[in-house]
């Protein structure tokens, strides 16, 4: 069986997304939930990049290897790559904020378990 590389990254991205979702729903430790979020984040990036892939395409950078005249046939779609670049930075920012909240919760409760945060439980 001959699998194209983009199918592999797409399936791996989907698997990461589901693993991350499972981790966020089942884990009690706040740090592990944040790791679950990061996994979802990475999975979505992989899916986006593989959707922008072109059969046999190369990076959309014009240099000695990619001629300007034939660039239309040889490079992959630059738009998903740019979108993923933005998404990575925003994911980093959100992760930093979540970790800061985790530090605060640990400081107040001396515990990282979500079960100890009972204030807004219903």
């Amino acid at each position, binding site marked *: 069986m001959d699998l*194209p590389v*983009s*199918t592999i990254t*797409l*399936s791996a991205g*989907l698997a990461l*997304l*589901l693993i991350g*979702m*499972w981790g966020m*729903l*089942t884990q009690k430790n706040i740090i592990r939930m944040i790791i679950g979020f990061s996994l979802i984040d990475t999975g979505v990036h992989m*899916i986006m990049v593989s*959707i922008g*892939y*072109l*059969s046999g395409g190369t*990076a*959309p*950078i*014009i*240099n000695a290897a990619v001629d*300007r005249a034939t*660039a*239309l046939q040889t*490079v992959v*779609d*630059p*738009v998903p*790559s*740019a979108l993923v*670049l*933005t998404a*990575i*930075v*925003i994911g*980093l*920012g*959100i992760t*930093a*904020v979540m*970790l*800061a*909240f985790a*530090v*605060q919760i640990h*400081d107040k409760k001396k515990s990282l378990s979500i079960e100890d945060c009972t204030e807004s439980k219903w």
Partner: protein
Amino acid sequence: MIKRLFIFLVLFLFAAMFYDLADNYQESTELSSLATRYVDKGPDELGAANLVTSVVVTYRGLDTLGEVTVLFLSAAVVGLLLGLMEKQAGNQSQKQDKTESSELVQTTVQYLLPIIFLLGAYIFLNGHLTPGGGFQGGAVIASGIVLLFLALPYARLRHALLSVLESLSGFAYVLVGIFGLVLAGGFLDNRFLPLGTYGELLSAGAIPLIYIFIGLKVGTELSVVLEHFKSDQQD
């Protein structure tokens, strides 16, 4: 048990939602019309060899400004959350025994740190020619700061200097955008500076300028975030 059932249901529905995408996925063989426009006209219009950079910095430059704003916001929230705690911890955290790393590590850091910063600057200066750019270069600079904290856990950054540098580069980024609005085609248009020779360091109009400001801003911002996480652990 009912909770576990719900979790499985949610996961199953997610899998079902994306199954269609994975099952019907076909590698595309030609670019979409938007990408065709960018790849076809981009090098002539903007003079950037890295087409992702031309999309990120110019065609979708407003999104990048929003991205920088989000990063600034998250740095501010981290500073607010962890800065409060530092104040509460106060001066009582000064008395623990200082465990510094070995002299070997400290000396290595002294030699490596300038080289890491140089690499970061190289990455954001060449963002329009090679893979890389402001965000990546800034992240490399911040990784140098991590190394510094590993070797010297009690090192302190000069917050006043960093915040001045960060604010100035954020301000300059918007200013460059307004120059584009006044002197060229629109907000964040890079063509108010000469495009130069294609593929050289000083080309692509204002793109290197914008990436320098983004690189400085991201580097200082991430360094301050990292320091907040570090100094928190002293109590």
